Structures are given as structure tokens and as C-alpha cells.
């Protein structure tokens, strides 16, 4: 069983790596060709950019700035800049069709594919874990004690006292945790190999693909202006949409490739629920929250609940209900 699982991990890992390699080759070809074509002098010919700014730009960034509108209006761009002048250059930034074909679309497609792949991998590795009876019971005890605390005033004080003692007494109360018995989660993890296994699976299906894709995006696509959204936005969106380009002159409605990656990472959930079915959507944000919840110690919850219950005072709420009922009945009669 374990070897089978290991095999699964390895094969999935290899798949990802192979995928990456294919893209590596494709894109390195693409870039060497592109960069050779576009050299500095040609750029300065097209854009009347001051030399000081030009030197600041890295080669690749210039390749971005030099993007053309979808279509092929090299001449159109030229005339446009001429007409309006340098001041509005940032607004008239036009994107190359090659960027659409080689950055925008591949990035989205790869994100979707990785999401689907991850879904299948996690499905393969999914082990139907039977929860520990003790943990389930502790959770239920906490819920019941919380109910008792919340609704204490609705039951007679005799009943409340009986329950309080049942929960809180120091001999065998349900919420009483003897000292030293509360296991710390780390020791528990070592004693229970299943737990470590689950951790590894979680890592494998979430962290590793994410780091890999991020590294991949960073390596190949850093600094691209990948898309333009069709409406203007305020400056505050700059950090969201233009992660990876440090230009303050570029209009905020342009989206950098790294930001496009993030938008895809968090925004593809709807698409996944369409492809993989409603409840199968891989939701990264949710998973991250789950990760945060790891290491929760139930015995801590028990003792906290015990403290809360200890200080709960009982004031029977029903003492004046007869008067309230009278008022209600008077209203009914009148």
C-alpha cells in the first residue's frame, strides 16, 4: 500500500516536472529569438524615450514596453505616439499579439491544467480517514457544554447545577482534563505515523505544485505586461495588478504576468466547479485556512470550556415569564 502511494507521488511529481521541462524548452527558444530581434536601437527608434530612462530598463522590460496592439498596427502605434506626444505614452501602451499567444493563454491554460491534475492526484491519495472516537467525543462534549452555557437560563437551577457538576467536577467530569494527560500535538504526530502521512499528502498536493508554478512563472514571465482590463482603476490596485513591474508610469489597468498568475490562482474556482463538479473545486484559499488550523489541541478546548462554565452564573430566565404571558394574553383578548 505504502509503496503504491509512493509510486503515485513520484509519478505525479515526474508528470509535473516533465510538463515544466516542455515549457522550459519552448520558452527558452521563444525568448532567445525574440530578444535577438528586438535590440535597443530599434526601440529607441520607435519610442522617443529619453536615454536616461532607457538605461534603467532591463532588456526584457523594454521588450514589454515595446509591445504592440493585438493585431499588427506597428505603424498605427507610431503615428499615435507622434500625435499625442510622449506624455501619454503610458496610456497608449499596446500589447503584442505574441504576448497574448505566449504568455496570457499558456499561463491560464497551465493553471487550469495544474488545478485539474492536482484534483486527480489528491483524489488518488485520498485516504478515507476514520476520525478517532475520542476526538469526536471531545468535540461533542464541547458543543454540549457550550449549549449549556448559552441556554443556562432557560432550565431550572436544579437541572443546571446537576449538569455543571457533571461537566466540571474534578474527579470524572467530562470537561476535566487530568494534568499531564493533554498530549502535545507534536508528540502525537510522532506517535501516529498516519498524521505525518496526511501532512505529507497535503504538502504534496498543495505546496509543491504551488511553489513550482510560482517559480516557473517567475522565471519565464517576470515583468511581462500580459493584459489590459477594459476599465480604469485607482492607484491602490497597482500592487494587486502590477506585481513584478516597478514602473509608476504604466496605467493601472494593465496587468502584469505575475499578477495574472495570482488572479488565476485565486479566481479559477468557478471554472473548476464547472469542470470537476460543484463540491470538487480546489479552493486554495480554503485550504490555506485549513493549514492554519493544524495543530489544534482538543484538550485545550476542553479546559477553556470548563473555565467558562465554571464562571457561568445561573439566573433563571423564566421567573417573570408569567407576567410576559399575561401581557401577551391581554393583547390577544383586546
Amino acid at each position, binding site marked *: 500500500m505504502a509503496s503504491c502511494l509512493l509510486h503515485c507521488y513520484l509519478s505525479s511529481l515526474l508528470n509535473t516536472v516533465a510538463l515544466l521541462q516542455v515549457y522550459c524548452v519552448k520558452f527558452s527558444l521563444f525568448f532567445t529569438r525574440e530578444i535577438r530581434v528586438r535590440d535597443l536601437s530599434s526601440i529607441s527608434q520607435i519610442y522617443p524615450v529619453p536615454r536616461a530612462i532607457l538605461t534603467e530598463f532591463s532588456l526584457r522590460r523594454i521588450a514589454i514596453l515595446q509591445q504592440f496592439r493585438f493585431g499588427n498596427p506597428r505603424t498605427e502605434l507610431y503615428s499615435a505616439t507622434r500625435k499625442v506626444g510622449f506624455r501619454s505614452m503610458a496610456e497608449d501602451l499596446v500589447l503584442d499579439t505574441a504576448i497574448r499567444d505566449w504568455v496570457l493563454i499558456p499561463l491560464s491554460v497551465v493553471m487550469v491544467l495544474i488545478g485539474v491534475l492536482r484534483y486527480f492526484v489528491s483524489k488518488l491519495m485520498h485516504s478515507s480517514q476514520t476520525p478517532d472516537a475520542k476526538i469526536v467525543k471531545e468535540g461533542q462534549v464541547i458543543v454540549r457544554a457550550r449549549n449549556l452555557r448559552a441556554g443556562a437560563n432557560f432550565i431550572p437551577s436544579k437541572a443546571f447545577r446537576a449538569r455543571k457538576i457533571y461537566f466540571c467536577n474534578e474527579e470524572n467530569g467530562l470537561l476535566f482534563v487530568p494534568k499531564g494527560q493533554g498530549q502535545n500535538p507534536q508528540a502525537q504526530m510522532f506517535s501516529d505515523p498516519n498524521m505525518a502521512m496526511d501532512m505529507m499528502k497535503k504538502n504534496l498536493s498543495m505546496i509543491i505544485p504551488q511553489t513550482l508554478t510560482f517559480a516557473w512563472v517567475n522565471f519565464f514571465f517576470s515583468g511581462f505586461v500580459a493584459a489590459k482590463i477594459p476599465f480604469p482603476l485607482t492607484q491602490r490596485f497597482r500592487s494587486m495588478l502590477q506585481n513584478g513591474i516597478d514602473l509608476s508610469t504604466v496605467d493601472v489597468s494593465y496587468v502584469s504576468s505575475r499578477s495574472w498568475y495570482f488572479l488565476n490562482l485565486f479566481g479559477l474556482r468557478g471554472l473548476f466547479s464547472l469542470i470537476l463538479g460543484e463540491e470538487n473545486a480546489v479552493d486554495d484559499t480554503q485550504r490555506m485556512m485549513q493549514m492554519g488550523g493544524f495543530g489544534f489541541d482538543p484538550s485545550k478546548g476542553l479546559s477553556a470550556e470548563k473555565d467558562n462554565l465554571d464562571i457561568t452564573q445561573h439566573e433563571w430566565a423564566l421567573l417573570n415569564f408569567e407576567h410576559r404571558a*399575561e401581557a401577551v394574553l391581554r393583547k*390577544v383578548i383586546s
Partner: protein
Amino acid sequence: MVTKTEETQLNRLENQVDNGGGGAWDYLCLVRKLKVRRSEKVLKHGLSILNDHKQRSSLGADEWTLYEQVAVAAMDCHCLDVAKDCTKVLRKRFPDSKRVGRLEAMLFEAKGSWELAEKAYASLLEDNPLDQAIHKRRVAMAKAQGNISVAIDWLNKYLETFMADHDAWRELAEIYVSLQMYKQAAFCYEELILSQPTVPLYHLAYADVLYTLGGLENLQTAKKYYASTIDLTGGKNTRALFGICLCTSAITQITKGKSKEEKEGLQLQSLAAKVLEKDYKQRAPDKLPQLTTALKSLTLSS
């Protein structure tokens, strides 16, 4: 709990489906979501979808859920052939599913072959000792066989682990009431009030149990809970109104001679009686004489 809007939606859909307006699948989904028991309708409309090949295949993966739903509904209606067919189809599709195993065990149960069902449930529980549905099935089975004490044992065992499950508490309370074990029932109703303090039905049932138990303290408490029921329902609960009258007269009987706070209670009683009379006048005028004699006997005896 089914809220009012959900119920109206369900009834509207049911009406629409019954009159051939379509939307059967939506109706079945809603029934499943709300966990209501409308087995006959589910059986009728579910089967019509399952028998229509085109409609069935358009469901995709939900087809199997529908099979399960129809199977359970068929067992409830004692259409064992349909249930058997559905279970068979599911078993063919999912050869080693525990969920289908549960269905099969339920089929045994529906047939009345208790021992086989018990064996099946036991083996399922061995695999997953925390399966709540199976624990509950066992209780239901013991109850169906008439072994009420066994059912109580199972329920207590179940509640030891799943002590926040108020449906189980309610079941236990009703069983205790049926066995006239009122103290235990009172405990269960306290538990129910704790988990849902604003449901008037639990207050009412608790008051009933306390009134039945008798004794001055219990009667006073019962009266308070009847009062809270009236408050929560806005005076529309007839049983609570009667409860107030009965409690007050019982209390005055006990405390005869040493009256202290009786006047207040009497006021509430007369109010309740008035509301009752008004209600009866509006809704059942022919029973009004019976009511007046009953109320008179209560006030006379005090």
C-alpha cells in the same frame, strides 16, 4: 428544522410537479436537502425519472444519488421490488461501497429479516464505528421489533459519544414518555431546551412532563414553562393555555389555606380561560359548552 419559506417553496414545487408542470428533479433535490419525509411522492416522481432513459442520463453523476433516494423512499412505502432493483443497480456500479452496504442492510430491515440486518449493520460498524446513520438505524430497528428497552440502551450508548445530537435526545425523550419514565424524559427535554432555547414545542413538552410528575415545585415550574410557551407562540398554543388552567387549579388545590401568591396565578388563569373561550367561539362554536363546563369544574375545584 424546515423554515416557513422553505416549506412553502416545497409545497409549491410539489403542487407543480403533481399537476405535470415539470421540475421533478428540483423537487427531489429540495426534499433531499430539507430531509423531509414525502416518500410516496419521491417514489412516484423519482421512478418516472429513472424509467425515462433520456432524463436519467441527463442527470450525470447525480443519477446514483437519485437511485439511493428512490430506494429509501421505496422501502418506506414497502415497494420492496423497486428498492431491490435500485440497490442492485447501485451495487453493480459501486461494488464495494459501504453506502450501498447500508442500503442493503436497510432492505433486510424492510423485509423484516432482523437478524440479517443486524449482522449487516454490525459488520458495517466494525469498519466505521462512528457512522451515525447506522447507529440510528439500529435504534429504529429495535423500536420496530418492539424491544423498547434495547432501543433505549442503543440510544444511550449513541448519546454517550454523540451527545450534541438533539434529534437523538428528542427520540429518547419520546420513548421515555411512552414508557412513563417522566424523570428521565424531563432530563432529555432539558437537554433539548438547552440546544434550542427558542423552540416552543420543547418548552411545552417539558411542561407537560413536569405537570405529569406532580408535586408543588414541579407544578410551579410547569406553569412557568407553559407561560414561556405562550410567550413564544404569542398565545396561539391551545395546549399551553389549557396547561396554565390545569396547573393553576392544581397548585391552588395543594396550597389551599396558605395562599400567598395565588392571586397573580389566578389572574393568568382567568386570562387564559378567556383566550380559550374566544378561540373556541371563533373556530369551534359547537364545542363551546364542553369548554365552559370543563373550565368551570377547574375553577370550582379550587
